[in-house]
């Protein structure tokens, strides 16, 4: 076994182990942390595949951004530690995940299946954008990627579509945020309403308070000023 194979097996075990822990841990925050470990392992895979740029991008996006997003989302829920998270539909979810895994393996793996004379999958894996160019200049993988991204004959259109996708994501995020914010405001209003009701019950007779604290101070000051002016 070569060193690379040993590393691959070790990293795979780490990734799969932490992935299992993500779904079995009760504590949502711990689940998010195990997810980070899993992401880190995937970055290791990219390094083994000679794709250093993607490894760094994996760390930057998934560990530096997505996991932060997850943790913030976790903190939006009320019961991070104790909540009961049974899912009655887990069998259906497992079946769907299995089917998707098979399709992905077929599409990306180095084998194909022939059904009724039609070939599904690609036996010539991996398919690179410009395999020969990368073989010719293995160090300049990122440059070739960049040239391909802005070339309309290669990946120019998907590149622009990615920008549109980001825009749509932004619009969607703001939409969701408004709804959540509205709910937050509602809850806050409800809580103050409850407080007010309590207050009313305890102290039925109450003078209306001045609106803002500072205003009363200012009024006080200006009254003093007026008084000194009189003297």
């Amino acid at each position, binding site marked *: 076994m070569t*060193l690379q194979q040993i590393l691959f097996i070790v990293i795979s075990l780490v990734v799969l182990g932490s992935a299992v822990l993500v779904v079995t841990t009760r504590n949502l925050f711990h689940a998010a*942390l195990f997810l980070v470990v899993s992401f880190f392992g995937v970055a290791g895979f990219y390094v083994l595949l000679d794709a250093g740029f993607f490894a*760094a991008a994996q*760390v930057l996006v998934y560990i*530096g951004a997505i996991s932060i997003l997850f943790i913030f989302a976790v903190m939006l829920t009320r019961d991070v530690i104790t909540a009961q998270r049974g899912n009655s539909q887990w069998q259906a979810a497992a079946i769907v995940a299995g089917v998707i895994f098979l399709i992905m393996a077929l599409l990306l793996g180095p084998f194909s299946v022939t059904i009724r004379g039609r070939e599904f999958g690609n036996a010539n894996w991996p398919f690179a954008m410009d395999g020969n160019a990368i073989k010719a200049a293995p160090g300049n993988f990122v440059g070739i990627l960049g040239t391909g991204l802005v070339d309309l004959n290669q990946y120019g259109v998907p590149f622009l579509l990615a920008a549109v996708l980001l825009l749509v994501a932004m619009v969607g995020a703001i939409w969701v945020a408004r709804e959540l914010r509205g709910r937050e405001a509602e809850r806050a209003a409800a809580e103050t309403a409850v407080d007010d009701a309590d207050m009313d019950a305890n102290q039925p007779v109450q003078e209306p308070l001045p609106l803002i604290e500072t*205003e009363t101070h200012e009024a006080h000051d200006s*009254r003093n000023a007026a008084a000194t002016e009189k003297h």
Partner: protein
Amino acid sequence: MTVFEVINNILKIVGDAVAAFIISILGAGGLADFVIMLLAALIICSICAVAFMGLTYAERKIVARIQDRIGPNQAGPYGLLQPIADGIKMFTKEDTTPAEADRWVYNLAPLVIAVFALLTYAVIPFAPGVVGTNLNIGVFYVIAVGSGSTVAILMAGWGSNNKYSLLGAFRTVAQLVGYEVPMLLNVLPVVMLAGSMSLVDIVERQTLSNGGNGIPFILMAPLSALIFLISGIAETGRSPFDLLEAESEIVAGFHVEYSGMKFALFFLGEYVNALAVSIMFTVLFLGGYAGPILPPYVWLLLKVAAVFTLLMWLRGTLPRVRVDQLMSFNWKFLVPMSIVNVILVMVIGKVFVADAVLAQSNGGIAVPPIVQALILFTSSIALLLASLLLVARQARQLRLVEAEDIEKRVAQNKVAAAKVVAQ
């Protein structure tokens, strides 16, 4: 032969001797390579740790002078032994873990933060040929590793099970991730001008020796340099962006509960990161180790010291900003300006091409590098001035509205006061 060459040769001889010794014991092969690499990595990490001790002293002394104090002066002459005293204290101080803490997360957080801070130094070129590893994605790697510390901060905040900690961690992370965007966007012009992400290539492009034109990138992209420095300061959470440890508001932020060695590791992470930002600024914009007469590492040291002194100066003089100001400054000023700046550099660099052959093949006007640099410099400064003017006008309008509001309220109060007096 100058003194520096003698030192250079001695270092080279010692290094070769150590490598030969290791190979003679383990035999040439993977294991010997591994041990040599481990040794090199340990040396880099130790240098960082020593630099951390030196920096704490220098910063305390210099900031004290700026603020008209004396600073550490008891331990040793001029307080020079202060870092060692601090080290002894950190080693022997009792270390408490709150009973309510999430133990594993709490104890792992300082380790993770220190390791991520040290990882940056794996790619930094200290002198020609002296670099941990010359990754072809160098800059990108540094930014990626820098973003990893956010998770550690959240771990610390969560693990402590303390309201101050968690609030501090959340604030910190919101700040760190926000200022990562302008950082990312302002590295782009440098990468475009150098045509590579490797830090060694970027430095070489700014020297006269290997295909470079000797113009530091700060002259070609001054606006990028400025925003990079600002966002770098914010990324390391130093004053005036030190909301994360606003002592008066959230006591010390995410590391309230930490004491002893774990606290020291957080501090180490902070200083090592600040040093990394100074070094990155030097490498990206000031030409790294490039310079005449003096040997490369002395130049690097001088430049880094100058940038770090600037950071200390800012820390000693500026007041802390408010959290909403911090956010607005980033998202409403730095990010849009960075985006426009990237477009500007991109277009100018393509229209006025410094390389005659490239100008022929890709279109564009061929100009000497110095002219290209001049055009880039002027347009960047023009963009900066224009955006500052725009912001100043907006701010004046806001102030006027506020002043009007205050006047109105004062008038209302006077009426109210008159009523009270009448009663």
